C-alpha cells in the first residue's frame, strides 16, 4: 500500500459561523501503479486533499500514511523528495526567472544534497534535451530560455516533466489543465496520460472536468462535500459513461 488516508477530517474557520468541513471523514487507500482521477465540484476539498498528502497542510483528525510512514511526522521538504506535483496555476510549478535547463536541474536533483558544483552539467543538459524532444514541443532548442517567457501550456508541460523526471513514488496533479485553453488542455492531458502509462506512475489527478475524469485513469473517486460518493475501478471504470457519473452525482445531491 503506497498511500493510506484514514478518517481524515479538515475544517476551515472552525468554531465560527463560517465553519466549513472541507474534508469530512475521508478514508481511501492507493495501491502502487494506480492512476486515480478525483472528481468533484469547486469547494469539495480536492486541493486541500493534495496539500494534506504533501504535508503542506495538517488534518484536524485522522491518519495519513505514505510509504509506510506517518505523513504528519515528516516535513513537506522530506516528502517532496518522493512526491511530484503539478499545480493549477502554470506559474506555480516553475521558477520564472530561471532557465528551462535550470528548472529541470533543480527537479532532477530533488532530494539530493546541493553542493557548489555546477548547477547544470553538460551530461544533464544532454539528458534534458532528450527528455524535452520526446515531448515534441521544440523546447529542447530553448534550454537557456527563462521559464517565465513560456506560454501557460508549455510551462505546465515543463512542470509535468520536472515532477516526473526523478520517478517519484507519487504524482499529484491539481487541476493542472484547468487554467489552459481547451486545445492546450487536451495536449497536456494526453501528455500526462502518456507519461503516467510509460512509467506506471502512481498518480492522483484532481479535476472538476467529468470528461477528463472518465477518459483518464484506472480508478475514479468522486467527492462531494468532503465525502467519497463513488469509487469506481477496473472494468467498471473503463466502461463508465458520462450519464452514469452525472447520475451518481445527482443522486447524491438528492440524497443530501
Amino acid at each position, binding site marked *: 500500500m503506497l498511500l493510506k488516508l484514514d478518517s481524515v477530517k479538515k475544517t476551515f474557520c472552525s468554531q465560527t459561523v463560517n465553519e466549513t468541513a472541507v474534508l469530512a471523514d475521508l478514508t481511501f487507500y492507493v495501491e502502487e501503479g494506480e492512476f486515480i482521477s478525483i472528481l468533484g465540484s469547486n469547494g469539495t476539498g480536492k486541493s486541500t486533499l493534495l496539500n494534506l498528502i504533501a504535508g503542506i497542510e495538517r488534518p484536524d483528525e485522522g491518519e495519513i500514511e505514505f510509504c509506510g510512514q506517518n505523513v504528519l511526522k515528516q516535513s513537506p521538504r522530506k516528502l*517532496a*523528495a518522493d512526491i511530484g506535483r503539478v*499545480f493549477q496555476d502554470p506559474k506555480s510549478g516553475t521558477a520564472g526567472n*530561471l532557465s528551462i535547463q535550470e528548472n529541470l*536541474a*533543480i527537479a532532477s536533483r*530533488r532530494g539530493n544534497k546541493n553542493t*557548489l558544483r555546477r548547477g547544470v552539467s553538460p551530461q544533464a543538459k544532454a539528458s534534458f534535451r532528450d527528455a524535452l524532444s520526446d515531448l515534441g514541443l521544440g523546447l529542447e532548442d530553448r534550454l537557456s530560455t527563462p521559464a517565465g517567457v513560456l506560454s501557460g501550456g508549455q510551462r505546465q508541460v515543463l512542470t509535468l516533466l520536472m515532477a516526473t523526471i526523478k520517478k517519484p513514488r507519487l504524482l499529484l496533479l491539481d487541476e493542472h489543465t484547468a487554467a489552459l485553453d481547451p486545445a492546450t488542455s487536451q495536449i497536456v492531458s494526453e501528455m500526462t496520460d502518456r507519461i503516467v502509462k510509460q512509467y506506471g506512475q502512481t498518480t492522483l489527478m484532481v479535476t472538476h472536468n467529468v470528461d477528463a475524469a472518465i477518459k483518464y485513469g484506472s480508478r475514479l473517486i468522486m467527492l462531494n462535500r468532503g465525502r467519497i460518493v463513488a469509487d469506481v475501478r477496473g472494468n467498471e471504470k473503463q466502461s463508465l459513461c458520462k450519464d452514469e457519473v452525472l447520475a451518481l452525482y445527482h443522486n447524491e445531491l438528492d440524497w443530501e
Partner: protein
Amino acid sequence: MLNIILSSVSQGFLWAVMAIGVYIMYRILDIADLSAEGTFPLGAVVAAKAIATGLSPWLAIALSLIAGMITGIIAGFIHTKLKIPGLLTGILVLTGLYSVNLRILGAPNITLLGKETIISQLRTIVDNRNVAALILGTTITLIITLILILFLKSEVGLALRATGANEIMAVANAIATDSMKIIGYALANGTIALAGALLAQNYGYADVGMGIGTIVIGLASIIIGERLLGASSLLRSLLAVVSGAVIYRIVIDTVLYLGVNPQDIKLYSAIVLAIVLWLGHRTKENNLGRGKSYAA
C-alpha cells in the same frame, strides 16, 4: 574637471559593491530587507577600528566581511525561524546595529588620517588618489561579480534563486528554503559590509551615521541600471547594477557640483530615487499599453 568625473566614477564602483549586496536581497531573494542601513556602517566601523588599532587594511576588510555575514545569518534566522516579516527584520537589525556600531567605534566617528589603508598602499604605485580608488573599485567589483555568477549557477545557487523566484516550486522540489534564505542574507550583508569597509578607507573616516540612505542608493542603482541594460541574464543584470551605481554617483556629484548644500544631499538622493521609480513605473505601463494594441 576630469578629476571630478574620475572621482565620481571611482566612488561609483565602490558603491557598486554595496548595490550588488542590495541586489541579492531585492532581486534574487525578493525580500525587502533594510539591514543594509546597519551592515554598511558596520563594515565601515569594523574596518576603521581595525585599521586604527594597527591591523592591515586587508585584514580589516576581511573582518568586515565576516561581521556582515554573521549579521546576515542572524537576520536570516530572525526572518525564517522567528517568522518575522522581511521589512520588520531589517528594521530590527538596523536599529540594533546602531548601538553595536557605536560600541565598536567607541565614538560617533573616527578618522583614518595618516593610517595605512588600501588606498594609501595603492598610492605608492599610482600618484592620483582617484585612480587608486578606481583600480580598487573596478578590481573588487569584477571579482565579486565573477564569484557571484559562479555561485548563482552552482547547485546551491540554483536552489537559492528558485527560493526567491517561486517558493511554492522550491518547496515542491525539496529545497531547504529557510537555509537558502539565510545563505542569501549572509551573502548580501557580507557584501554590503565589505563595501562599507572599502568606502571607509576611501573617505578616510567612519561614522555611525553613514548608513542612512544606503538602501536608497542601492535601489536607485539597481533600477537605473535595469532601465538601461535590462535584466535578461545574470551577467547582464549584475553589469546593470554596477553601471547603475556609477551613473547614480555621477548624478549625485553633479547635483553637488551645481552648488547644492551637502547637508541637503539625502533629500536629493531620495528625490532622484522617486523620479527613477516613477519613470520606471510609467514606461512599464506604456509597454503594457503597447502590448495590448499589438494583440488587438
